[in-house]
């Protein structure tokens, strides 16, 4: 491996955060400010290198052989540096840097600050690894690592039972997705002979020769995305993940990790797009997720949970776009969503810190007076989210809706309804949190956050505004163009937007408590309860049955049986030990007779 300045950049991007995590864990745990500084420095370094990589058109980096068995299994650690990964590098390291800086303020007084920044650095390492991977196994490695760091960060305040449980739930749920993912990888490897993406593309005909096989493999790989991107039915971990610190929610559970699933789908688009069935399934799962997420967001009263369900819903849009065969639209929405969702979460974090960790929207109110910058930036983010022109969300969501309009009317209707609901719950949140009168003392006393926190907010707000403008976005990705139906879709979308917001503002203005009671939605369609029941069945019932069999049947039968048999035989033989000398002599004589018989006469 020779290192020239040109080719070592990708390695630098990847390894700087890892070095930061290692140094903090091993050496600087006592010194919290130093740890924070190292972490922020590392991610800024990665960002600068990512910018450099972005501008260099022709760049390649040396590979490293992780496993090589006689050529039958070759796992390289190598990089893919096409437009897609360069874009993701910028998004991940850029948003990551902003959130690191924000964390300096948010986590200022936290006791576990070193631990937090070490985990955050490790996360950056893993996430950058995902977008740089050139083969399935390497991607899976970083995929799992991202899940691990998410677990650590969700459970950062581990003394709280809720946080510990949430981290566990997140890791296990994503692992279930990874189960399907791995089977898909195995199927692709064995059929095409390689795990490297470029090689698989070259040998694609071997897989497409059997359409059923291809569909199953594609859907199994989709399972991984279902887990990581919180699609239905594996979405249940994301709302609980809000137990983690808000910057974590912003970075991992809004902008980057959950987007990894969408990135995966786009990366292996060559596989998915070869199967119409897979595309249809993916599109529908995305649609259902989008609709469900939006519905569930309308009844939540914790501001972070509203945003969490909103994330689920927006991810549904991205997956829907993938299923509608437009990777460009999916990536465009991922791009804009990263900015405005991170912005919304960070703004929510600003509110939470100002109100001393109060998260219930019904205890807020009238915050527009005191938290001016937070209000303004949140407003920008909200407008982007509901798809109001000229903000970024309008362009990306519009692209997806246009696709649906052209290809699948039922999906379009669902998407439009979701847009209406999105406008509804966002306006609901805005109205209850910022407008009207303060509902508690905390709300009355809340003050604006320090510049280290509002700075990133302003930067993200600017990006949320211009991110969708073609003049800006086309430098980074391919902006999807609508073909015919130029005006129908935007008009319908705007109508939905106005309707949704209007109803919400009218309903929620000047209220003290929740006027709508839709129990089914408020209990999130009882999906969590259903899973609890399933787990209870398998864990308690099955496991107890197995434990019972193990203890009583196998143990008793085989082991006790063997020892009991030995004891029984011993008791039987004991009968010969009578202690009587003459009886022994008699038996002795019998033995001699038998011996003579067997030697002489047989």
């Amino acid at each position, binding site marked *: 491996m020779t290192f020239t300045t040109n080719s070592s950049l990708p390695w630098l991007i990847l390894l700087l955060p890892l070095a930061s995590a290692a140094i903090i864990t091993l050496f600087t745990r006592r010194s919290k400010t130093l740890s924070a500084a190292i972490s922020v420095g590392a991610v800024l370094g990665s960002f600068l290198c990512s910018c450099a990589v972005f501008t260099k058109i022709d760049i390649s980096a040396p590979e490293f052989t992780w496993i090589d068995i006689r050529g039958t299994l070759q796992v390289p650690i190598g990089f893919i540096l096409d437009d897609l990964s360069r874009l993701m590098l910028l998004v991940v390291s850029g948003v990551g840097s902003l959130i690191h800086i924000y964390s300096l303020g948010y986590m200022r007084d936290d006791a576990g600050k070193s631990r937090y920044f070490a985990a955050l650095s490790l996360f950056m390492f893993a996430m950058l690894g995902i977008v740089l991977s050139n083969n399935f196994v390497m991607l899976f490695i970083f995929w799992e690592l991202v899940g691990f760091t998410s677990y650590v960060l969700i459970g950062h305040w581990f003394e709280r039972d809720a946080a510990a449980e949430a981290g566990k739930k997140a890791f296990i749920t994503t692992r279930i997705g990874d189960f399907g993912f791995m089977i898909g990888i*195995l199927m692709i490897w064995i059929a095409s002979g390689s795990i490297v993406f470029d090689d698989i593309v070259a040998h694609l005909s071997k897989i497409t020769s059997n359409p059923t096989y291809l569909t199953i493999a594609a859907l199994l790989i989709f399972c991984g995305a279902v887990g990581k991107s919180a699609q239905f039915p594996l979405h249940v971990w994301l709302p609980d993940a809000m137990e983690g610190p808000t910057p974590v929610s912003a970075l991992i559970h809004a902008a980057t990790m959950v987007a990894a699933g969408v990135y995966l789908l786009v990366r292996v688009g060559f596989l998915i797009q070869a199967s119409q069935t897979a595309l249809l399934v993916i599109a529908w799962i995305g649609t259902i997720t989008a609709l469900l997420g939006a519905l569930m967001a309308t009844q939540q009263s914790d501001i972070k949970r509203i945003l969490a369900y909103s994330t689920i819903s927006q991810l549904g849009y991205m997956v829907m776009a993938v299923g509608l065969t437009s990777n460009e639209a999916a990536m465009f929405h991922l791009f804009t969503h990263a900015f405005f969702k991170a912005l919304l979460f960070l703004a929510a974090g600003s509110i939470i810190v100002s109100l001393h960790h109060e998260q219930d929207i019904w205890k807020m109110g009238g915050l527009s007076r005191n938290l001016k910058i937070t209000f303004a930036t949140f407003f920008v983010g909200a407008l982007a989210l509901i798809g109001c022109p000229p903000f970024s969300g309008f362009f990306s969501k519009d692209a997806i809706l246009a696709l649906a309009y052209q290809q699948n009317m039922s999906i379009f209707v669902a998407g439009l309804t979701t847009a209406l609901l999105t406008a509804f719950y966002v306006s609901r949140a805005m109205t209850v949190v910022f407008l009207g009168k303060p509902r508690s003392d905390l709300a009355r006393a809340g003050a604006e956050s320090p510049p280290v926190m509002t700075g990133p907010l302003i930067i993200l707000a600017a990006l949320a505004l211009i991110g969708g403008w073609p003049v800006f976005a086309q430098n980074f990705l391919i902006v999807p163009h609508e073909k015919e139906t130029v005006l129908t879709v935007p008009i319908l979308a705007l109508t939905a937007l106005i309707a949704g917001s209007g109803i919400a503002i009218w309903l929620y203005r000047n209220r003290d408590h929740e006027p709508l009671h839709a129990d089914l939605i408020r209990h999130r369609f009882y999906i969590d309860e259903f899973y609890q029941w399933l787990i209870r069945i398998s864990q308690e019932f099955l496991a107890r049955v197995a434990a019972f069999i193990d203890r009583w049947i196998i143990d008793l039968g085989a082991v006790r049986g063997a020892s009991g048999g030995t004891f029984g035989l011993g008791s039987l033989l004991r009968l010969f030990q009578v202690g009587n000398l003459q009886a022994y002599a008699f038996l002795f004589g019998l033995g001699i007779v038998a011996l003579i018989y067997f030697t002489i006469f047989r």
Partner: protein
Amino acid sequence: MLLFLALCPIAAAILILVGSPARFTALVAAILNLIVALALFIEFDRTATGFQFVSSFVVSTDWGIHFAFGVDGLSLLMLLLAALVTAAAIWFTDKIDNYENSFYACLLLISAGAIGAFASIDLFFFYAFHELALIPTFLLIGIWGTGNRVRAAWKITIYLTVGSFVLLIGLILLYQSLPAASRSFDFRALQSVIAGQGIADEAQRHIYLLLLLGFGILISLFPFHSWAPEAYASAPPPAAMLHAGVLKKFGLYGLLRLAIPMLPDGAHYWTQLLVILLLGNIIYIGLVTIAQKQLDWMLGYSSVMHMGYIFLGIASANAIGTTGAATLIFAHGLSIALLFAMAGEVRARTGTLSFNELGGLAKVMPFAGLAFGFAAFAAIGLPGFANFASEIMIFFGAFRHGWEMQGFHLFQIATVFALWGVVISTVYMLRAYRATFMGTMPERWAKVVDLGRGLRIPVAILIAGLISVGFFPQTVVNIITPVIRTYFAANK
């Protein structure tokens, strides 16, 4: 060098029994062994085939018995594992109140038995060294254990003796089935038999079944596993570390070294049986592990479960799976040793390992929490640790066996189940970690003290082993694949 490796623990044991300071002598011996093992690892010639560092003394020419030691890639890995875990186990030994000398002597004898068995290239001494380790295990569990220790000690000893007995019959039959002229206990002679015409098919099947059952009992193959959880729960932590981490692997090493290469037809014949049994290990025992309410029992059952993965790699009968199996032996040994060590530390401080009573310990024992966390995530196959690299190889190897595009066959289905086993292991391990170290802490643990600074070194040794192979598995693959290649090339 190899002679030193095997005899140093025995010499140290004798010295301790005679009266030298127990902990100091044992520690010195273990660290010396570790250094020698690492030196062997570095000096090992990766391009040569056959055994290296051979030293041989004739014992009986009639029977063909030699007191012979030698290493190739596979045994080198095992020796490294044994040296690492021995050093860690002795370092982790707490203060012993009664018969301290005998305790350390027993530990050293177990280590000597394991190292001797791995380094032996003579069948006779291979078996003999393993038997050497049985009685010290009995003593360690019976005298210095906790809970129902006497019962556990009896159970493990008698069960394993029965297993050794079945194994002995198998080995004798193996010896008898060799052509009379070239009968020898020497592995190199056995290898030339493999290269030649091999053993008759019919005989292979019987012998292989005996070897599989014999070794299987020693490895806690389902359904012969019930000795393991009880024994590990009752054993003192260093004994559990050595047994689960090293001694149990003797059986797997035997399968890889003897049974598979010499009896390929037999192995092929009994593949389906082995797959069913190993799925029992993974799924059935996995479910039982979830039901456990105590950390020591849970760890005992989890070690039984992970044997299933190693068996899957062995059963897959190709270079990928077998290499993965060998690497997982190394990885699992290290991770389970660290897990048992941490569990022992928790029990020493709180007196209990019940999930209902523990909680939030990471607040008062942050280093223990970190170490246990590393070990737990290594055990469930997090990338970056050796276990993941080896499991990847096992899954790929197993999935490949007998694959056709039209449908899934036995091995593909087995791989799917094994992958589900990964989810199962995540459930129980995370649940254990959360119940022990996270959440609200009951008041009575507020005074608990964290691990001493000295203990950071053995923890670092074990984790360093796991991470270095996890990041650079090719180093291990490079020394194992030549060995595997000679075996499979001769037969396929």
